[in-house]
Structure formats: structure tokens, C-alpha cells
């Protein structure tokens, strides 16, 4: 029992933090926002130069064979800079689903492209999906980076299928999205050809675990960055003849952010460890981590705006990037209330 990073994990964290600090700059992220929401160079460097894309993929499937703790470390570092990357769709969802649930052929066909960053994938959930003769009809209006994807992993909650973007009867419409660093798209299938994932339950479970941990870690990184940037501002900005960080009410609000963040940090790494160690706490931990960390990120980013005063409300300042990202994390993969209700059901049973 040692709830602290190993030396190797510490090294990964430092490398990732330095990489995003240097490269995922506001200017580059904003350029990606104006384009299609992906900083292509950043993505290639992340996948290839650093070789981080396969961190939580088994070595047998071409990955590094590490776990969700390491994935969380990367996602936290990316979230701290609102990096415009397709990590959620490509790595946390699609690559995990294929690595855990794909046949050998499917793994061979897709994983190397996903891990090299050349192929971008997106995840489409539609509980009402119709499957007839191996053709899919249905879709979703809210597919993260759906307009940039060449591959869709599609699920109705129990089955899972792979659909190529260039297949017939696949219709993709980009949507102007509040969080421009991870734009949504409408993806519709009207009898699209498909290939079933070999072991859908395993694939979906792996994707779900990785995505919940990954989003929670991204939220944690955003929250921590919101706090740090606001604390920096508070030490420098002078008003009424004093640094505003010397005002007690201001200090207390930053302290409250830190209290939340420390809990979010425990939640994220608890969930990651619980999954990696196969603990029976894992399902509860995943619900806890996603709901808690997302709310923490939202609160901290909102406080960043508030505590910066007028400047925090401008487009020019980065506060809104964190704010919008936090909001999108709240609604992706189940809102907080939904996750908490799942926990309540574990404790209390279904409501009568």
C-alpha cells in the first residue's frame, strides 16, 4: 500500500507536464479552435515523438503495457492546458475498445494507425441503434471530434461495431460547439456497412473505464491549472492598493478550490488504481471520480473567471477555455447526477 507515484510515474508526469507546457500554448490551441479543434503537430508529437499514445495499451497490441494511472497522468497534464487533441475518441475510447475487444485482425487493422495518430477515431453512442443484416441505422448529434474521424466505434450499450468514415451511408456534419477544443459532430448512419467488434462487452468495459478515468483526470488538470493561474494573478494584481490575494475572502475562495481539487486528485488516482488492481471498488470509484472531478473543474474554472474580474470574461483570456472544457466534461459520458444515482443504487438498491 503506497498511494504515491513511483519514480517511473513521476518521470512520466514530469515529461508530460513539460511537453504540454511548452507546446500546448494558448496561441496553438486557439489556432486549432479556429480550424477543426485538433493541433495536428501536437498530436503527432504526443503519439510518435513521445510515444505516449499507447501507454495503457498492452504490449502485445503495440502499446507500452502500463495502466490507467499512467493514462491519468497524461490526461491530467493535457487537461492543464486544454490541449486540442482527440485523446478521448481515439485513445481512451476507440483504441481501448479495440485492444480489449477486437479480434487479432481488428487489432492489426486499426491499432497502429490509432497509436501513430494517423487515424483518428470517434465513439458513437446510440441506445436506439438499429442493426439489420450487419448494417447500422442511427447515430448521435454529439460525437466528440466526429468530423475529424476516419473510424467510428459505434455502440448501443451492449453491442459494438466498427464503421469506416468512407463507408456508404455515413453522414457527418460538424457542429459549432461551445468547447472548440473538442468540437462535436452529428454522425448518422443510414444502413451503413459495419464490422462487429469481436468481444463487445470487454471492449466497451475497457473503453468506459479508460474514458471515465481519462475525463476525470483531464478535469483534475483543468481544475489545478485554474487554481494556479488564479493564485498567480492574485499575487500580482493590485487593487485598492493591495495585491488582491491578500484579501481574505479572495484567499478563502482559492482555499476552497484547493480543498475540492485535493479530493478530486484522490478520486482520480483511486479510480485509476482500483481499475489497474482489479479492485471490487472500481465501479464505485469510476462513478465517483467522473462526477466529482468534473464538478471540481467546473467550479474552479468558473471561479477563475470570477476572480479575474472583467478580464476573465474576455475571449482573449484563457479562462473561458477551461470553463467550456469543464462544462463539456460534465455532460460527456453521463452527468454527475446520473453517476451519483448509480452509486446510490449500489448502496440503497433501486428506488421503489
Amino acid at each position, binding site marked *: 500500500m503506497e498511494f504515491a507515484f513511483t519514480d517511473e510515474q513521476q518521470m512520466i508526469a514530469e515529461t508530460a507536464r513539460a511537453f504540454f507546457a511548452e507546446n500546448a500554448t494558448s496561441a496553438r490551441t486557439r489556432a486549432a479552435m479556429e480550424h477543426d479543434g485538433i493541433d495536428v503537430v501536437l498530436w503527432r508529437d504526443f503519439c510518435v515523438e513521445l510515444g505516449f499514445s499507447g501507454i495503457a495499451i498492452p504490449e502485445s497490441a503495440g502499446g507500452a503495457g502500463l495502466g490507467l494511472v499512467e493514462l491519468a497522468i497524461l490526461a491530467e497534464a493535457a487537461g492543464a492546458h486544454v490541449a486540442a487533441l482527440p485523446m478521448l475518441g481515439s485513445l481512451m475510447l476507440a483504441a481501448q475498445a479495440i485492444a480489449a475487444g477486437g479480434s487479432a485482425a481488428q487489432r492489426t487493422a486499426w491499432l497502429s494507425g490509432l497509436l501513430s495518430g494517423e487515424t483518428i477515431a470517434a465513439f458513437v453512442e446510440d441506445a436506439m441503434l438499429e442493426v439489420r443484416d450487419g448494417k447500422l441505422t442511427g447515430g448521435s448529434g454529439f460525437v466528440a471530434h466526429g468530423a475529424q474521424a476516419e473510424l467510428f466505434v459505434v455502440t448501443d450499450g451492449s453491442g459494438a461495431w466498427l464503421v469506416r468514415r468512407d463507408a456508404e451511408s455515413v453522414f457527418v456534419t460538424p457542429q459549432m460547439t461551445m468547447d472548440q477544443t473538442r468540437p462535436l459532430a452529428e454522425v448518422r448512419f443510414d444502413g451503413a456497412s459495419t464490422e462487429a467488434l469481436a468481444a463487445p462487452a470487454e471492449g466497451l468495459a475497457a473503453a468506459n473505464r479508460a474514458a471515465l478515468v481519462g475525463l476525470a483526470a483531464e478535469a483534475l488538470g483543468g481544475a489545478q491549472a485554474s487554481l494556479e493561474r488564479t493564485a498567480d494573478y492574485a499575487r500580482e494584481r493590485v487593487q485598492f492598493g493591495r495585491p488582491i490575494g491578500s484579501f481574505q475572502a479572495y484567499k478563502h475562495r482559492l482555499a476552497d478550490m484547493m480543498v475540492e481539487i485535493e479530493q478530486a486528485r484522490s478520486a482520480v488516482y483511486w479510480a485509476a488504481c482500483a481499475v489497474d488492481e482489479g479492485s471490487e471498488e472500481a465501479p464505485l470509484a469510476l462513478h465517483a471520480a467522473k462526477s466529482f472531478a468534473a464538478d471540481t473543474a467546473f467550479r474552479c474554472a468558473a471561479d477563475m473567471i470570477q476572480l479575474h*474580474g*472583467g478580464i476573465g470574461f474576455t475571449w482573449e483570456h484563457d479562462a473561458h477555455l477551461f470553463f*467550456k472544457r469543464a462544462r463539456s466534461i460534465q455532460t460527456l459520458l453521463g452527468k454527475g447526477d446520473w453517476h451519483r444515482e448509480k452509486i446510490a443504487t449500489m448502496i440503497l438498491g433501486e428506488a421503489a
Partner: protein
Amino acid sequence: MKLGFSQADEHFRQECADWLNGQMAGEFRDIKGITKLTGSPERRKEWEKQLAAHRWSCIGWPEQWGGRNATLAEQVIFAEEYARAGVPGRVNHIGIELAGPTILTFGTEEQKQRFLPGIAAGETIFCQGFSEPNAGSDLAGVRTKGRLEDGEWVVNGQKIWTSLAHISDWIFVVTRTEEGSQGPRGLTFLMMPIDQPGIEIRGIRQINGDAEFNETFFTDARCPADSYIGGVGEGWKIAMGLLAFERGVSTLGQQMGFRNELDEIVAAAKANGAANDPLIRQRIARAEIGLRLMRYGALRMLSNTDHSRMDGAALTYKIQWATWRRDLGELGMDVLGQAGEVTAHRDYEWDTLPNLFLFSRADTIYGGTNQIQRNLIAERGLGLPREPRWTA
């Protein structure tokens, strides 16, 4: 204590409603339902003139200056019916609600004659130059300088958050006219024409993609020597008096806008099934309660005849509505779900509820942050000791 309106008031309500609805169904139907302050500015300037032509532009003002000497109840009713009819907000809000009353209260007879008719007629649009880049909520930290030179004020400096400056004709500016003065002393409240080489306006893009606010730069900007209100060096007093007008009857019109927003949330919740979620139901009920309590708080504030004293209802009003509306923005998004995170517009432009979510983050900042409001409440309302002076 009485909440009901008299029969005469109810007749007046009908008259307001009839006229406003007629306008919104007729000549001005193209501006009905615009919620953004920046929408269709030219048409809305015409609307200001239309209001004036029918003597609806400033009904609380004396008849002499284009008003109707309307009673409190009548002003309440007009504000309510105005918003209920879906009429967009007044682009000359600052002129009618702040500059006009300030001139009426503190101006000379000559100034009244110079400014009031134009404001009442919808021909003079005003904006407000209070905040500065390095002063934020701290009005006493004003650095924009004014000096008298050859019978004119010459102003240099920068204001920020000057809402609608880009469509305004005049700006009132708090300037530091006493060299070396600090804090609230040595300030003078000037009225300046905007269309002059010394004033440059740059829009500030906000997090919702819109640009209601501006930076306004003064470089040897000029106005005549008699452009100050009150007295030279009395700018603080005038500015404080003006801020008190912000808590006037217009708050009730503002609330009707809130009512429209809440109604839109209710409609969305009914449409998409969120209305069945017990947690959403509690939050909608809380929002409804909060809105009603704002209304009755405003009526208490306005019924208070002792205007010399800032009472509790008035002191707490700003933080109350700002916080309520910020929460409403979050509620709206939670009702919409992911649908609220995409827009059908090509550009980064948002419909009412997502825009409310984004824009309302400013409500708790401008016009004195929630933090400043709490200081005011504690010190003026509760008589608690002031912060100690800073000795690094």
C-alpha cells in the same frame, strides 16, 4: 402594506400592453424578441425615437422634460408590460435611467436644457465611463486625467467595459482632475461627445463570442469647460448618486427579461422530459421563488420612502439578481443537456439559454463584483469595521 394595483393602474396596464403589443406586431415586429444588447442597433435607435414620439421613453421623468410624471405603480407596470411584450432592452438605458436622472438631480438648469430633451427624444444615446483597466471594481482608483486648458477639459486615459460605446453619442466619464489626488477625492464627472478625434473605441470580444463591451481610449479628448456635473472635484458624489439610480424601476423591467429566460427553461424542460427529473424540479422551483423574491424585494426597495438611507433590500439587490441569473444559466444548460453545447449558427453565436449561461458569468462581475457587493453590505448595511490599511 398593499401589493394589489388600483383599477386605474390596471387600465394603465392595458394601455401600455395595447400600445407595446401593437408596435411589436406592426412597424417594429422585426426587433421583437431580440435578447442580446448588441442586436439590430440601428433599428433599436429608431425604436427609442418611436417611444419618445408617443411619450413612452421616460415616463417617470417630469412632464416638462418629456416624461409623464408617472407614479411608482405606473412605472412598475410599464416596465413589466414592456418586457412582457417581447420588446428588446433599451439601447439608451444608460441615458434614460442613469444620465438623465443624474442631470435632473445634480445638473444646472442650463445642463438640463442642453441634455434632457435629446435623451428623452431618443436622439442622444449615452454610455458610461467608470471602470479602468487597472482599477477594476475600484472606482476610487481612477487614473484617467482631465485638465482645463483654454476653456476646455482635455482628457487622457482609458476606460474599459464601456457597454455599447460603439453606438453611443455621449459618454459620461469620471476623471481625475486634481493632480496628485488619491481615492475618491479630486474626481470630476464630465459629459463628453464621443464623435471626436480624441476618443477611440475598440470592442472587447467576450466569452460568448459577442462584443457588447468596449475599451475606450482618450487622447487629448475634449469637452467644454462647463461639462461637469455637480462641481469640479465632486465626481465621486455624483458617481455614487448615479449608481443609486441603478436600483430604480428599471430593475423590474430587467426582471421581466429574467422571467422570459426562466419561461424558456420551463418550456425546454417540458419538451425534452427534464421536467420529470426531481432534481431539476427542485431547481426550477428555487428559480421561480428567487425571481418572485426579487420582484417583491424591488417593490420593497421602491416603496421605501426614506431614500436617504440605503436599506437592506437595496443593498442586497445586485448580488441577489446576479447570483440568481448565473445559477439560472447553469440550470438552463442542465435542462438542455448536450444540446446546449452546440449551436445552429455558423459563427460562434448562441441562442438564448446557452448565451445566458455564458453571458451571466459577467453578471457577478460588472457593476461591482459579488465580492465588492458583500463588502458594501457588511460595511454599510451591518456597520462592520472596514478592512485594515495595507502595510506590505
